[in-house]
């Protein structure tokens, strides 16, 4: 039995290394010079360089990084402000509507061109192309439904006795929601907010189509860079690492909620 377990562990470790290897290779590459990257056979040991990161940081990459941060944060805040009360209301209402559920799920799952085309056409006239506001609005299409679907189960399982007690004490409905219900759902709120942020941050398609330069986000900037200096792999890798760093940290922090976030609450992980 113990031998079995040892084999199992070895297998699990081996597999996780295999799965992680491609990712680690990219990280490694971001610390290499171009000559080291192209060397054959590859050097196992090399003196790491920070030059790739330095070059990125002094370039205009920082601006796209800021755009990503601002648009992701703003759409998350908006989606939370609007979506949390709605999720609460849905959790407390007796009747459910199939159509409403379908609408919310479908807007989370629709193919991106479905929104990209009308938004692009409308933004041309509204002057919202290449603006952060334009991106924030389109990120609401998936963030809002995400908030509703993630938060509803939290409110459903929260005991109603507390808020009812608050009403009897003379608190208004709003007060009860803010002072009693929300604090009890704090972990869920945090996880939901982080997932919203991650999804907006990860967006590539909408930013590719709806921004030019001023509002360009970090993922688009990295790809642009890739087309531009196709063989400076060290810098491309460094750009990739910078784009993934915040997301990696955040998502591992809320890993318990990842699955429900990615499946819009269909499965609790």
């Amino acid at each position, binding site marked *: 039995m113990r031998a079995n377990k040892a084999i199992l562990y070895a297998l699990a470790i081996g597999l996780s290394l295999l799965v992680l290897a491609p990712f680690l290779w990219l990280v490694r590459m971001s610390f290499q010079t171009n000559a080291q990257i192209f060397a054959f056979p590859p050097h196992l040991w090399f003196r790491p360089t920070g030059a790739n990161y330095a070059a990125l940081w002094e370039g205009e*990459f920082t601006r796209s990084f800021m755009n990503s941060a601002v648009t992701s944060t703003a759409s998350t805040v908006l989606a939370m402000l609007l979506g949390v009360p709605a999720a609460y209301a849905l959790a407390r209402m007796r009747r459910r509507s199939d159509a409403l559920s379908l609408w919310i799920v479908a807007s989370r799952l629709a193919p991106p061109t479905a929104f990209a085309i009308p938004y692009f056409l409308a933004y041309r006239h509204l002057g919202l192309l290449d603006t952060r506001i334009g991106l924030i609005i389109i990120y609401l299409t998936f963030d809002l439904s995400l908030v509703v679907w993630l938060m509803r189960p939290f409110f459903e399982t929260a005991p109603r006795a507390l808020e009812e007690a608050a009403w009897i004490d003379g608190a208004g409905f709003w007060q009860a929601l803010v002072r009693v219900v929300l604090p009890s759902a704090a972990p869920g709120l945090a996880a939901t907010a982080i997932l919203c942020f991650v999804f907006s941050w990860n967006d590539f398609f909408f930013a590719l189509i709806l921004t030019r*330069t001023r509002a360009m986000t970090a993922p688009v900037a990295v790809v642009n860079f890739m087309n*531009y200096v196709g063989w400076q792999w060290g810098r491309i890798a460094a750009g990739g690492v910078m784009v993934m760093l915040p997301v990696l940290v955040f998502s591992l922090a809320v890993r318990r909620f990842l699955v429900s976030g990615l499946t819009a609450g269909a499965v609790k992980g």
Partner: protein
Amino acid sequence: MQRLSVTRRRMLAGVAGGAALLPAPAVLGKATSKYAGTTIRGAAFSLPFHQYLSTYFPEFEKETGIKVAFDIEAFPIYNQRMDLELSTGGSSYDVIIVTFIYQGKWIGAGWVTDLDEFTKDPNVTPASWDPVDFVPGVEASMRDAKGHTYAYGVEAGAMLLYAGRADLIDRAGLALPTTMDEVLKVCAAVHGKAGVAAWTADKLHHWNWPPYLEASGGRVFRDAPKDLMPLLDTPPAVASAAWYAGLLKTYGPPGVLSFTDDQALHSQLSGRANMRTNSITWGLPLAKDPSSTVAKTVRYGMVPGGPAGDFPGVACHGFGIPKGSKKKGAAWEFIKWALSKEMLLRVVKEHGYPSVCRRSVIESEVFKETLTLNGQDVAALYLKVLDQLGDGAYMRYRTVPVFPAVGDKINRAIDAIATGQQTAPVAMKEAEAQAIEAIRMGGYKIGR
């Protein structure tokens, strides 16, 4: 992304090494001061000329009081985005690169400004600026039917053949190929020698292949821009497509079908691939870039021809002003400054820029000296290509509005042949059918 190019710019600037600064161009009179304090926004794809020019921006800002801010993007992304930007009539930009393949579309749709209103006004543009000095073949595609000019040439990407390892060809007892048949012969003799692939290219087949199509007696359209019936499945088209796809498949380095310009350049710089035909801009670094491993063995020649003659490609990108710009006057001041004879001479002299569009500059001694590469007079080759171009008739296929869609069909067909998915006749027949459909969708009436 502009700043990311610093290394390369520095690299190439090093080439110019300590050339003395010439006095500032005389064009800049006091009249320009009325725009002092404004900022103009420009957009360009990553083009060497722009990198060189931007080193002089502080001078321009000091002399005119106009601030210049440029956004630089990769070529495919720039085109896609600028196309959309212009279609919205946006006022984001005041100066843009009018890309060659979009000239027909953007000028035809009225999205860029008629520059005659500036050049015809002696108060705005002195006679010494001399607009007719720009090579006519280069300017042809930047004019409308009435002869008005909408952009002035920044880069005449004239195609040459360059072999990084000409020594290998010598050793095989051969010379640089001048015909398509010779290309195959030379490739067969040198491929794989010293670990060097014989041929390399970027994946923009619809730019790289047409010279061979035309040399074989074929054409992209029956008579662009008047008759846009595509002719992609004619015998010369099929034969030259098979020839070109076979060249890449048999003699290209691994992954050649996915190469961007930069990757193709790098395959030559690092000595992993030998020959390429493309714009002179991509051939210059082989002789001049400090990271080149082939500077001592590179040799230049004309693009190989065929039974129907020589048709080296020339892509002419120009500076223009979007219709929606609210600072057209200041934008023109910038273009006038950037493309003056004096400035172009400086860029040639100090940076070794090869793709100038002004005849007076091309014929100057400075240019000839600069384009003496590895002991070879490449300036003469460049002029020869521009002469070949004449009025630009054989390049007109590229500047019709539907070309981007048709070009995509060409790319996919060559890919399909090179990867063995389809035979040349089948692939080209399909490309023809799809091209016809795309052209009709674009609202053009065509018929057999």
